């Protein structure tokens, strides 16, 4: 036990802490400037100086540890004089431009000078001059104001681990700069903005548009750009978002954000938002009233239902919408339209992958805490770059590496470049050969654990490819794979992170090989999740074959119990999966579709075929915040509210339920559930909801999975899997496992969708801020690929697929693309890379099996 006396108060500790932490825990304030919770200690600003008895000089409270019997004083005349002197030194160079500095009002230097002085400076030297830098589209740098506390550099090096900025120069020529000296060209996480105590590094988005004290309200809500579920605060004035900021320590992101979360909020205020419903009249979309639009939908839907029945409808929900929206949608489809044809884009990866792993290992196997990755002693990454798809989760991989963990990256993961201990990347199309070789090597080094007879039996059935075949297909040497197996020989606490690209070439065989690797490593599974509520779509029963809570609807005891409890009927036969729906639409078996918050004719493989099929629909309703490619084809377009305009819940990739809080009222848009309830009421099935909370209560009744989690329980441990609810099923499913490792494609170039750090699917293209970082699509490829087709960096190229579709864009040569694929982001209008690929349907899970045709690339003059 350590006893310290601070300002005549005795405080006891059972472990050594710094004087600053000791004082703060006792409610005693010590001023700081360079100190920031969570960053490496620095002791540079000398403002936390305190007197320690028996030590001759003043000590920095932020770095000196307490010892038993230490007597500390924090505010004596000598200390106050010292702090005043420190501030006087800072003010030699810090400009007195508070009247037009955006930081004024929340500036730590301003606050300290207000408290301690110095009112007058005694130094006659002029201030250092360094012109403000506007080289960057997002971040403005004013290094005259910098007090060299280095918080930003410590954040960038030690937490974000991007190391994009540094202190250049020395003495009074010290300035914080990125390598270029101009544009940042970094990950634009903006975490340096959070920590800058003065107005030296600031966001350009709201420059000179308001003062800190204009903020009327702060709403704590969730970011709507990916499945991590970061908490953030929206600062509001009237009905306008002034900015999005994190709060240190808050939420699972603990105060960190990525570029999308921090700067993408301007999408809410975009002038391209839809503000009124549109109805197609004489071939053109015309603005109409809500009453007219909803009336038309109800009338048409009633007509089709009466004539043809519920199976003629297709419903597409969205992992961007809340549980409440999606739950009400499935109720509308099942109760009002009597149809189980409900699915969403998570059929591409998240849903089938989760079903597959749960089938092998048991339910909830993917519900692992993101913070656990940082504590692992080895991390294996396959099928995508976590630092791009789920940036804040990606930081945990970097943190693990910083703690000495072995990081093995089996896919193109540029964001893990300095952090991976090995990066065996197979040539595109041959990933399964790499996975099988790795599995075999791991069985050799670690042995089979003997926990599951059935998995080991399946492993025993694999027809292993031989070494020459592996080298020939993957381009990797046997020693590369042996090194990975050696790295993974001893670790006990391993995380395996799986991204969406795993589905592209590898199909179920890839999933099985990864599952077997997980089994041999006894690892935790993390599924990367591109959109904020992918898990919620599954949990709220927006699947063709399951009820809310994940119970199979074809088992009549489950269905009947559900119908009895909820008071509405559910068709007994499972509906069509997403891709089956498009097949059915193409054949004319489906007449009407309701697309809620997604853009399938742009986002799904064989986008052109899907577009063609959709154009044959009798009636298409699209609910969206923007006039997307799909909305442009619709008969009725209904404007929707976005996440900052909603109450409700999201479930993140850890299966943690979190609450959204409405920050502003949508201009013209309505929440998904409001629109659906409106249509349902007009069709004769009234839904009595007044708020998202009412729906949440109904969901907890409908889904035994959520048990009795009330709104108040969210943000407690009850909102974490398994929610203290009933287990839904036990035992394991029969899983079909292919035996042979085969290559899906030839040896040519293949085009892959690139997952960008700065964009979130086709949705974030409406954010001016994110577009200012990246507004143009590009085709990125390895120098060898570029050389083989005679393309140089920056050339304008045309990529044509065998199906006749082509796109035109600029090439970018990057040796980080190690698998000889050509990667194009599927984000920007007019450049739909998904139209260049085709798919088949995997019968077990309904997942698309990608067919990558060889592409032709030529230079455009």
């Amino acid at each position, binding site marked *: 036990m350590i006893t310290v006396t601070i300002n005549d108060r005795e405080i006891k500790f059972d472990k050594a802490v710094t004087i600053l932490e000791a004082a703060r825990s006792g409610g005693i304030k010590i001023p700081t400037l360079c100190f920031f919770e969570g960053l490496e200690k620095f002791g540079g600003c000398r403002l936390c100086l305190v007197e320690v008895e028996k030590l001759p000089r003043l000590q920095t409270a932020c770095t000196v540890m307490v010892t038993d019997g230490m007597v500390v004083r924090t505010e004596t005349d000598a200390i106050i004089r010292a702090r005043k002197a420190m501030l006087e030194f800072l003010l030699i160079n810090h400009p007195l431009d508070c009247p037009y500095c955006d930081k004024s009002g929340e500036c730590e230097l301003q606050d300290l000078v207000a408290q301690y002085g110095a009112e007058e400076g005694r130094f006659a030297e002029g201030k250092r001059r360094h012109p403000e830098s506007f080289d960057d589209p997002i971040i403005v740098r004013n290094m005259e104001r910098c007090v060299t506390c280095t918080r930003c550099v410590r954040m960038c*090096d030690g937490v974000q681990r*991007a*190391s*994009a*900025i*540094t*202190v*250049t*120069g*020395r003495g009074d020529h010290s300035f914080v*700069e*990125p*390598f*270029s*000296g101009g544009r940042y060209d970094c990950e634009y996480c903006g975490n340096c903005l959070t920590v800058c105590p003065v107005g030296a590094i600031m966001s350009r988005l709201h420059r000179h548009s308001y003062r800190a004290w204009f903020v009327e309200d702060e709403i704590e809500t969730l970011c709507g750009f990916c499945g991590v579920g970061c908490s953030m605060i929206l600062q509001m004035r009237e009905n306008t978002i002034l900015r999005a900021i994190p709060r240190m320590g808050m939420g699972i992101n603990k105060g960190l954000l990525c570029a999308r979360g921090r700067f993408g909020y301007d999408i809410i205020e975009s002038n391209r938002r839809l503000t009124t419903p549109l109805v197609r009249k004489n071939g053109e979309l015309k603005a109409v009233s809500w009453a007219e639009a909803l009336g038309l939908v109800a009338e048409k839907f009633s007509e089709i239902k009466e004539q043809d029945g519920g199976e003629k409808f297709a419903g597409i929900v969205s992992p961007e919408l809340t549980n409440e929206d999606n739950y009400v949608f499935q109720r509308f489809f099942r109760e009002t339209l009597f149809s189980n044809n409900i699915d969403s884009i998570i059929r591409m990866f998240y849903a089938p992958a989760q079903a597959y792993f749960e089938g092998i290992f048991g339910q909830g196997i993917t519900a692992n805490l993101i913070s656990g990755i940082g504590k692992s002693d080895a991390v294996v990454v396959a099928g995508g770059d976590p630092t791009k798809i789920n940036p804040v989760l990606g930081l945990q991989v970097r943190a693990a590496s910083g703690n000495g963990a072995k990081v093995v990256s089996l896919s193109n993961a540029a964001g893990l470049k*300095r952090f991976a201990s090995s990066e065996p990347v197979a040539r595109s199309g041959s990933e399964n050969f790499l996975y099988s070789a790795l599995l075999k090597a791991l069985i050799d080094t670690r042995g089979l654990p003997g926990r599951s007879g059935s998995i080991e039996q399946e492993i025993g059935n694999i027809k292993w490819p031989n070494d020459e075949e592996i080298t020939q297909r993957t381009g990797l040497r046997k020693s590369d794979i042996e090194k990975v197996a050696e790295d993974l020989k001893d670790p006990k606490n391993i995380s395996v992170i799986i991204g969406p690209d795993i589905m592209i070439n590898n199909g179920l065989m890839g999933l099985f090989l990864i599952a077997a690797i997980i089994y041999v490593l006894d690892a935790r599974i993390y599924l990367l999740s591109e959109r904020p509520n992918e898990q919620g779509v599954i949990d709220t029963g927006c699947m063709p074959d399951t009820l809310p809570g994940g119970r199979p609807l074809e088992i009549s005891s489950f269905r009947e119990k559900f119908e009895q409890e909820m008071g509405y009927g559910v068709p007994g036969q499972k509906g069509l999966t997403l891709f089956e729906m498009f097949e059915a639409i193409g054949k004319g078996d489906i007449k009407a579709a309701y697309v809620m918050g997604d853009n399938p004719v742009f986002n799904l493989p064989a986008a052109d075929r899907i577009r063609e099929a959709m154009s044959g629909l009798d009636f298409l309703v699209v609910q969206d915040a923007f006039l997307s490619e799909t909305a442009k084809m619709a008969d009725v377009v209904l404007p929707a509210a976005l996440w900052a305009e909603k109450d409700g819940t999201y479930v993140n990739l850890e299966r943690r339920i979190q609450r959204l809080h409405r920050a502003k009222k949508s201009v013209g848009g309505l929440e998904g559930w409001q629109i659906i309830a409106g249509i349902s009421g007009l069709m004769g099935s009234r839904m009595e909801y007044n708020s998202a909370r009412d729906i949440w209560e109904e969901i907890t009744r409908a889904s035994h999975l959520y048990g009795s989690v009330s709104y108040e329980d969210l943000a407690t441990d009850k909102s974490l899997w398994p929610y203290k609810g009933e287990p839904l099923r036990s035992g394991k499913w029969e899983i079909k496992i292919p035996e042979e490792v085969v290559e899906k494609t030839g040896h040519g170039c293949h085009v892959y969708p690139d997952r960008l750090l700065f964009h979130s699917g086709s949705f974030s293209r409406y954010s001016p801020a994110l577009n200012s970082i990246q507004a143009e699509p590009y085709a990125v490829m390895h120098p060898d690929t570029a050389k083989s087709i005679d393309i140089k960096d920056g050339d304008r190229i045309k990529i044509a697929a065998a199906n006749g579709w082509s796109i035109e864009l600029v090439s970018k040569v990057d040796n980080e693309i190690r698998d000889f694929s050509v990667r194009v982001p599927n984000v920007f209008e007019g450049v739909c890379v998904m139209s260049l690929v085709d798919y088949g349907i995997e019968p077990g899970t309904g997942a698309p099996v990608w067919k990558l045709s060889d592409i032709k690339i030529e230079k455009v003059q």
Partner: protein
Amino acid sequence: MITEEIIKKIQQKKGDYPVFRSAIMSALHEIQNTEGWLSQESLYKVSGMLNIPPATVKGVATFYHMYRHVPMGRNIIQICTNVACMIMGAEKLVDLLKREFGIEAGGTTGDKRFSLVIMECIGACGTAPAMLVNDDFHDNLDEKRVMDILNGYK
């Protein structure tokens, strides 16, 4: 141009230290010794060779006075103007160079023959004023001696 030979030398230096980071300074010296200065491109290359973020390399390179960030002439004249040399007339010598070669402190002659750098004390206070031309040390300077010495550098 960073030659294969330099790259090889830097790769060897990596092994001399427990972490690659420690090799930054000697790698920079290696390049400056042949190039005469450190271009942005050179810093980037060092970062790639040592697997260190480029910004970190730049931070190191700009901290130390003796790394040069502008192209230098073939010969670098470094004159001390600290107290002892100043009293003994170092500033006159700086004026002389300005007159004779038209170079200011930090500048380079048009024919790239000389660059002038004002440096801190080189420990020759007893025989001030003193200067370095490239790595050669010269003291007890006066105007004539300076011109004689510099005539030997083409």
